[in-house]
């Protein structure tokens, strides 16, 4: 441990506990400053904390720690001299410094303090101090020149370079210290990747799907490293703040307000951490569609078809797993379009124009692929060749999404893929039906209707329909969609015994499902099913309810598809 080698473990522990409490105080002041506390007194408090840290350093006599604190103390003294206080510059500097001190102390506790970070911090602060000295000199000069009325015009012009210096100084701070977000990093990785993808010839040995798969892990692995560093930093801060909280509680003379503020900051940090964990598996959809477009163009070239893709996906990010699930049905249908186009058109220079649009709709993302056909029969041929129902089900099972294929205005094929924004933390709604509790994805419910808002009617014997808002929809109880072992008691075919109804869409069909009760939506972690349950129809995963019991997440769209098919067969019979 170098200069710390002579420190006894007991002294080290005392130092670490004291320093943790002081750095925690520093953070609390920064929070208060962010919340709008009077800046001068707040900066003075930080200054006092730095002095206290220097005092506590006597226990271990670490030169680097002491020198860095001295430079920071000097920085604060200079900042306090400036008028007006450059709080917009000082706050990020103080917060970043505090974060580096946190990490250094954490490292010290583990036995390997990141000295290089502390040294870099000292140098950066020292350079800012130099810049600040210059600013102060210029300020003094300006004040003296402003005192003489003859030089007023020149004095007004003179500060310009000083202002420019100040701006440079602020930019330097933000550029050197701001940690790039995962999104920024992902976009830069993806930009590099794009540069790699476009000029290269396609890899003949790989299958179509593998071409996409082979790209994915690199993006995720690099992103994982960056984001895990950010998470590590947040965990370190939470850990340190916990120490400070304990210290506050033990002292018992701190106002509740401070404690609440600290807890609020904790919650923000945890929330930020959850966001970062979710972002670990996210991939930009632009990358996905670029690769899809590249793949389609390569496939079409062999058939003499020209493919043009116009993509507008608004910088959306989706989980890699969801995009992988999308790849197969999407590429399959688009390849069929190319295939049919090449067969139908006599000229070999035929072309396919694809317009891809992606928009987020609450908790889901809707991708619309529009493809105009000069010949309407092309669409019918595509429809004949693509097993839409199966594809829709597989997509729903894998990605928790839906697929709609429809013909619009006779000559335009519209493909609609709806997938949840995040499969890992989707919005889940608990609903009870037939005495059992179920969970469903929020995005599959088109609407929720109260019992008073609809009328029910008997239809073709034992079937039921409801009328709501001028529309008539087939109705069934939610629990009737599947086999729960025991038959449900229905008093009369016309009576509808339910508290509410939910409208669920499957292709062009909409069905109303009666449920007893619905909870408000909440973002939850969906646990995957065990292997032996993967093939059970109607199951997507499980979530753990508030009482700790698992609740099955129902693949409503898939079950509605099966139910509607059975219903049609019954009517036909």
């Amino acid at each position, binding site marked *: 441990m170098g200069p710390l080698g002579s420190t006894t473990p007991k002294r080290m522990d005392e130092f670490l506990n004291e320093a943790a409490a002081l750095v925690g105080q520093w953070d609390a002041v920064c929070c208060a400053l962010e919340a709008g506390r009077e800046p001068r007194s707040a900066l003075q408090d930080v200054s006092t904390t730095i002095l206290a840290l220097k005092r506590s350093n006597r226990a271990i006599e670490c030169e680097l720690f002491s020198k860095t604190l001295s430079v920071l103390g000097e920085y604060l003294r200079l900042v306090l001299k400036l008028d007006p206080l450059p709080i917009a510059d000082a706050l990020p500097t103080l917060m970043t410094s505090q974060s580096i001190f946190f990490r250094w102390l954490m490292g010290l506790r583990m036995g390997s303090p990141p000295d290089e970070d502390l040294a870099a911090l000292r140098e950066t602060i020292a350079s800012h101090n130099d810049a600040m000295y210059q600013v102060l000199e210029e300020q003094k000069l300006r004040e003296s020149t402003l005192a003489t009325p003859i030089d007023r015009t020149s004095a007004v012009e003179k500060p310009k370079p000083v202002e420019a210096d100040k701006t440079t100084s602020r930019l330097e701070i933000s550029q050197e210290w701001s940690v790039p977000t995962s999104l920024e990093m992902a976009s830069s990785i993806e930009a590099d990747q794009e540069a790699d993808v476009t000029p290269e010839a396609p890899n003949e040995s790989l299958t179509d799907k593998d071409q996409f798969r082979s790209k994915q892990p690199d993006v995720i692995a690099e992103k994982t490293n960056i984001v895990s560093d950010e998470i590590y930093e947040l965990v370190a801060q939470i850990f340190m703040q916990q120490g400070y909280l304990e210290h506050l509680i033990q002292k018992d003379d701190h106002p509740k307000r401070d404690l609440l503020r600290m807890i609020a900051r904790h919650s923000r940090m945890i929330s930020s951490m959850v966001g970062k964990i979710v972002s670990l598996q996210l991939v930009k959809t632009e990358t996905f569609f670029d690769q899809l477009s590249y793949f389609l163009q390569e496939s079409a070239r062999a058939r003499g078809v020209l493919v043009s893709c116009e993509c507008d996906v608004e910088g959306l990010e989706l989980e890699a797993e969801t995009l992988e699930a999308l790849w197969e049905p999407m590429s399959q249908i688009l390849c069929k379009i190319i295939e049919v186009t090449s067969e139908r058109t006599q000229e070999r220079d035929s072309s396919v124009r694809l317009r891809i649009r992606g928009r987020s709709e609450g908790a889901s993302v809707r991708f619309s692929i529009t493809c105009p056909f000069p010949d309407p029969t092309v669409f019918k041929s595509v429809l004949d060749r693509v097993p839409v129902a199966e594809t829709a089900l597989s997509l729903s099972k894998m990605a928790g999404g839906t697929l709609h294929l429809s013909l619009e205005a006779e000559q335009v094929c519209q493909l609609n893929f709806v997938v949840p924004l995040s499969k890992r933390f989707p919005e889940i709604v608990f609903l009870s039906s037939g005495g*059992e*509790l*179920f969970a469903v994805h929020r995005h599959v419910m088109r609407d929720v209707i109260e019992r008073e808002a609809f009328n029910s009617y008997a239809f073709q014997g034992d079937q039921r329909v409801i009328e709501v808002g001028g529309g008539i929809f087939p109705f069934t109880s939610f*629990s009737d*969609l*599947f*086999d*729960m*072992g025991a038959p449900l008691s229905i008093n009369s075919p016309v009576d509808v015994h339910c508290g509410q109804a939910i409208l669920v869409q499957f292709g062009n069909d909409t069905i109303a499902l009666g449920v007893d009760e619905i909870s408000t939506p909440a973002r939850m972690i969906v*646990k995957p099913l*065990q*292997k*032996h*349950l*993967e*093939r*059970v*129809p*109607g*199951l997507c995963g*499980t979530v*753990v309810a508030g009482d*700790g*019991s*698992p*609740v*099955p997440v*129902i693949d409503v769209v898939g079950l509605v598809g*099966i139910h509607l098919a059975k219903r049609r067969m019954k009517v036909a019979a």
Partner: protein
Amino acid sequence: MMVARHQTHFEEKNAFLLYHDGGHLFGTPLSQVKEVIPFRQPRKLPNTPDGYLGVMSLRGEVIGVVALSYWFPSLKAEQQSVLMQSMIIAHGISGETLAVVVDTIDGVALAESNEVVPPVSISPALAHGAGHGAAKFAQGVATLIDLRQLCASMDASLQSKSALAG
């Protein structure tokens, strides 16, 4: 010294967990048993066959819960109070964990290899490699079943598919 000899026996494959279900005595190699816990009410799952009782959360892991009648339909007749029942948490070959509900746990007993006789054909499942055979213990003659094999060959969708088709 006696303890050491006893432990050596347990490390070999001859230690069996004995349990009763539906009036029958069963035994399972101890190496396949992760733990034994009191019965907990599982959450029922739709579209699953009879005998598949649902899922439960065990220390954060959501695991399937099955009754032995899932594999041995003849055991259905006798039902024990749930208060008396236990769950054997067994390891599957693929690393999955499964809870098997049984009526009572009878303890652990040792059986030498030469004491195990070929499987008694009480179910077709035993004929598919899931049966170790039968052995005589102080509690009676036990059917020795390979829970790991049974868990691995499990597919909860098989029976439900036919139910849906009907």
